[in-house]
């Protein structure tokens, strides 16, 4: 977690530093993409820096707590809702016991807030083939969705997208990075 914070701080300063000079070039390169995206997913693209491509969660608040914008409980380190990343074992989509209380807390929150939607972003480490890792990432996300449904969360609140190994959280190529990359991120959607 300490590592994440440092990376994030660096990332934010890099964005600020590079923002002005890169804006024009980025806009010309990515304008089409942004245009297409805005029609589909207003919630996650609104309020974004033009062409920056940062997702809502990464821009939000402190970054330690990607869902902090949803409510104060999401950035209270003593509240399980402050945890939004579920980690997995190699080649497995089975939820480990440590994370059951975290998932249960999110499920309870969602049942109490039936208008709130979340996207389960499934991810994998870089080993093995890329499309297989897309499938594995989806299985991981779906195993959390099914736990939440069992607890009573409405299916309409839950969306799944798998990025496989395409969006690593840690850029290293060793076991420590792989562990951080085998994950599902619970991403609350803005209203």
């Amino acid at each position, binding site marked *: 977690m300490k590592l994440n914070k440092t990376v994030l701080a660096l990332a934010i300063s890099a964005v600020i530093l590079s923002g002005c000079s890169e804006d024009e070039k980025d806009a010309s390169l990515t*304008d089409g993409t942004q245009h*297409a995206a805005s029609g*589909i997913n207003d919630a996650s693209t609104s309020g974004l820096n033009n*062409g920056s491509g*940062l997702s809502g969660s990464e821009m939000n608040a402190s970054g330690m707590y990607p869902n902090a914008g949803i409510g104060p409980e999401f950035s209270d380190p003593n509240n399980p809702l402050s945890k939004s990343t579920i980690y997995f074992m190699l080649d497995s989509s089975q939820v480990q016991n440590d994370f059951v209380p975290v998932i249960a807390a999110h499920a309870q929150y969602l049942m109490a807030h039936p208008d709130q939607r979340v996207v389960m972003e499934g991810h994998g480490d870089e080993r093995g083939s890329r*499309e*297989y890792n897309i499938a594995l990432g989806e299985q991981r996300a779906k195993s959390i969705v099914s736990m939440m449904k069992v607890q009573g969360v409405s299916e309409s609140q839950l969306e799944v997208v798998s990025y496989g190994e395409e*969006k690593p959280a840690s850029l290293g190529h060793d076991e420590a990075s792989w562990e951080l990359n085998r994950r599902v991120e619970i991403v609350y959607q803005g209203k």
Partner: protein
Amino acid sequence: MSFFRKILLIGLISSYMPSSYAEMTIEITEGIESALPISIVPFAMQGRSGVPVDVSFVVDADLGRSGYFKTLDKQSMSGHPSTAEAIQFKDWQALGQNYMVIGQVVEDQGQYNVQFQLFDVYKGQPVMGYRMASSAGDLRRTAHHISDLIFEKLTGKKGVFSGRIAYITSSRQGRQSTHKLQVSDADGFNAQTIASSVEPLMSPAWSPDGRKIAYVSFEKKSAAIYIQTLATGERVRVAEFPGINGAPSWSPDGAKLALTLSKDGNPDIFVLNLVTRALTKLTKSFAIDTEPTWSPDGRNIVFTSDRGGKPQLYIMSSQGGDEKRLTFSGNYNARASFSPDGRSIAMVHGNGSDFRIAVMDMATKAVNVITDGRSDESPSFAPNGSMILYASRKGNAGYLSAVSLDGKMQQKLVFDSNEIREPAWSP
């Protein structure tokens, strides 16, 4: 519609800016012992405005990196003759050369006439000679064509120097990533970006006629499959179902696309008829089924499935049904790619901690591991079937590599980008 126009514009801009004269170097890491000594004598250049491409240098580099030839550096040559009469064959015999190539490039009002002759040094006789016209912009292509002609004449195998490769690159600035689908010549020059996005791009697949590329884009923050026409930059979205839209693979006749969709709950193989738009579901297992690839005769599809617990390769009829497991050695076999003659398949083979490229003989089912990396992936056959292009990594540096089917010959293509992957060799 401005979206499509924008993409088209990007295509046009990049095609006028060959961005990559220093983007790539090629190192031969393993050559064959029987490499043929050949001298590519610098071609004579005539013309007022000079010649923008050193044609003989490109031919020398092509043949040298193929591993089949050992080229002589120009300092060691005994003179630089450009006509048959000027060649002293005895001198070249003394240099241990089996073959030599001479040529001329003559400029005439912005057009170029290129001619070359290949000689057998011991017999002192011409083996082949051609004359061809080229525009300035096509000179590299002409040089690759010359390499193809020489290669085929002397090895009996079709050359692949005129081909192109597609691949994905990623770069990061802070938390912002830029993902690009690029197409370059087979030697890495003339790289052009054909699609760019802040969200991931994946799985480029050439149409059998080499005119289009199908790929996966997450630009809408969910997966969709697009088919883009290279000449115009126009593209069409062909699959955007809930869940996975992945692993596009063209049927050999170019009329259908096999793909992976998870819209019914878990990833299954489907076939999309590109003419009628009809979608047919081929697999119905409760496991992961993905990475379909057609056999060159169009009859079968090989795919990856973990229905047995671990990912392994399976084969079925391209109409669906008759599913059989193909791989039994190693606990991970995935991402199959057929050789052009259909006799073998390349795959990603894992035996615990490392992932390497292996080749299976379809008749005997014997599996031969041909690379020795730790995370080798995405094998793609050269159109003449002699080499397999794949993505590899050493430490933080990602690169592309090409290896002969027996693993004896290997070359490394090092690009500027450290995140380069999913190479696909054009048909």
